[in-house]
């Protein structure tokens, strides 16, 4: 079903022109200023920073927690999108509408409320505290905050594709006697896979950079619950613009690489689906 690259369609020049100038002005030129700033540091300074054990620990925490949150959201986002599109039940509209809430709520408010809920005296935290599990002020807290902030990504990426999915293939599958699980794996999943992947990578990347909500719930102890954006902030607090931007660029390059890889896989998948 891949789009054929058209030679007859008009608008190549204008659409690409608009896209490139917009992207240059909003993204590329400002990013370039950032790189300029960190250039003061020199390669040796950059290397020292990149191998600093505390920075590395923070990068590990950020990556692991964002990954966990993105996986959680991939599973639940898919389930949410599926039930909203496929089933009719009371409060369906409500659930559908609530999905955007994390974007509308300022991250600080989200962080504060989540911390109140999951602290060992909170509504959610209390039963876990009885079992000896700490939610807030631990890595689980970071995962909860990032999960909350990135809920809309997967659900909203998958939903339009599911809505547009043609029922013919599924019906054919049913007629041929395939089970429901088989139909899902063989027919539906390949169709929604690119969207699922997009949602996952967006959630993951967004999680890496999240600051406002996480700092309230994290505990922020060096080497255990300190996240990368906090390191950047503390460098800025010391008026260390070059080091702050260098750490930023470090994480940026990492997440850029991940997104680029995901985009490649996606193009492959689309190609594969097209050749079928």
């Amino acid at each position, binding site marked *: 079903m891949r789009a054929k690259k058209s030679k007859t369609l008009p608008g190549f020049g204008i659409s690409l022109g608009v896209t490139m100038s917009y992207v240059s002005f909003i993204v590329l030129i400002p990013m370039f200023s950032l790189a300029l700033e960190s250039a003061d540091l020199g390669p040796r300074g950059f290397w020292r920073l990149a191998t600093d054990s505390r920075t590395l620990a923070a990068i590990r925490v950020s990556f692991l927690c964002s990954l966990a949150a993105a996986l959680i959201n991939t599973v639940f986002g898919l389930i949410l999108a599926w039930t909203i599109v496929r089933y009719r039940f009371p409060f369906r509209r409500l659930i559908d509408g609530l999905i955007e809430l994390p974007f509308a709520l300022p991250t600080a408010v989200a962080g504060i409320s989540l911390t109140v809920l999951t602290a060992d005296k909170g509504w959610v935290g209390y039963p876990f505290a009885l079992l000896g599990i700490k939610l807030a002020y631990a890595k689980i807290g970071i995962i909860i905050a990032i999960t909350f902030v990135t809920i809309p990504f997967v659900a909203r990426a998958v939903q339009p594709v599911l809505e547009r999915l043609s029922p013919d293939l599924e019906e054919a599958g049913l007629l041929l006697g395939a089970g429901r699980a088989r139909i899902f794996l063989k027919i539906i999943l390949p169709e929604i896979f690119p969207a699922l992947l997009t949602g996952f990578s967006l959630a993951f990347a967004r999680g890496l950079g999240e600051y406002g909500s996480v*700092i309230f719930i994290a505990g*922020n102890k060096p*080497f255990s619950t300190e996240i990368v954006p*906090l390191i950047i*902030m*503390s460098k800025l*607090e*010391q008026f260390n613009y070059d080091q702050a931007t260098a750490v930023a660029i470090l994480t940026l390059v990492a997440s850029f690489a991940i997104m680029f890889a995901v985009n490649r896989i996606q193009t492959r998948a689309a190609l594969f689906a097209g050749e079928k």
Partner: protein
Amino acid sequence: MSRFFIALLALPLALGWALAPASTAWAAPRELTNISYDPTRELYDEYNKAFTAHWLESQGEEIAIVQSHGGSSKQARTVIEGNEADVVTLALAIDITAIEEAGLIKAGWREEFPDNSCPYTSTIVFLVRKGNPKNIKDWGDLVREGVGVITPNPKTSGGARWNYLAAWAYADRLYNHDEAKVIDFMKKLFANVLVLDAGARGSTNTFVQNGQGDALLAWENEAYLALAETPDQFEIVAPPTSILAEPPVAIVDENADKKGTRDLATAYLQYLYSENGQRIAGKHFYRPSNPAIAQEFKDVFTLSMELITIDDPLFGGWDIAQEKHFNDGGVFDRIYSND
């Protein structure tokens, strides 16, 4: 279909037009921008009203004061980056020094106004749970086993640097300047720290709302603000020794000269030292620098506390203290590093 989408586009445009702030205020009064730090809102709300009235009465000119609040270093950074403040009223001298180094404030600003340009001071106290169940009286009690301490991170919070230095000053006396033992004390103290929030407000929330820890290290004025929000659950403990927190003020010379507001800015900061200005500071839990006015608030502040200043030889001023303790690779980092 198409008509519908045109409506979809036109609606926000119309809304935007209606919402655009009317910026054509002609004959606008002169404006003074005061860039301040976090918990000074009430203080300056009241002070700005008092000063506007005073200026109208003495000079016959109406003025408008624009106020900005945020983390102290962050606020200093916005001024360096081009936020056009006429005056800054921040938490730490080093934040104003940073603006000076960026070329916006002339050297010698500390001598421009009385008392090192600090019209009011504060100190670090403990907020403990009602009845003080862990019997916390002094800094030494904070390193006992089983005592949970809440403080913000000195790397991201200006206030927390005062907390750290106050503890350091106590330990320095206790161990007679033996730095190895002092660092050991600090290690024990930070091992008891349960949550290291990014800012002072986050710490208060962790302690008050979420019930973490037994003692919160806080600025005196913030401890009173927290007490005012939840009156019956906490009490303030003033340790016998602590640090003198001096939040300084300064005119941002470059901006004031460019905008022609120097006379106004000078008068604005000077009025902070007037009896009226001093009383307003005291009312909002800042210690007035004028001793006579401070006496009027002796029921609020424990005036007998021994307060060590940052210029004490122990610390040698902000520049040296910052470099030694808080910069990357400094003592604070070593306290938290694994070795």
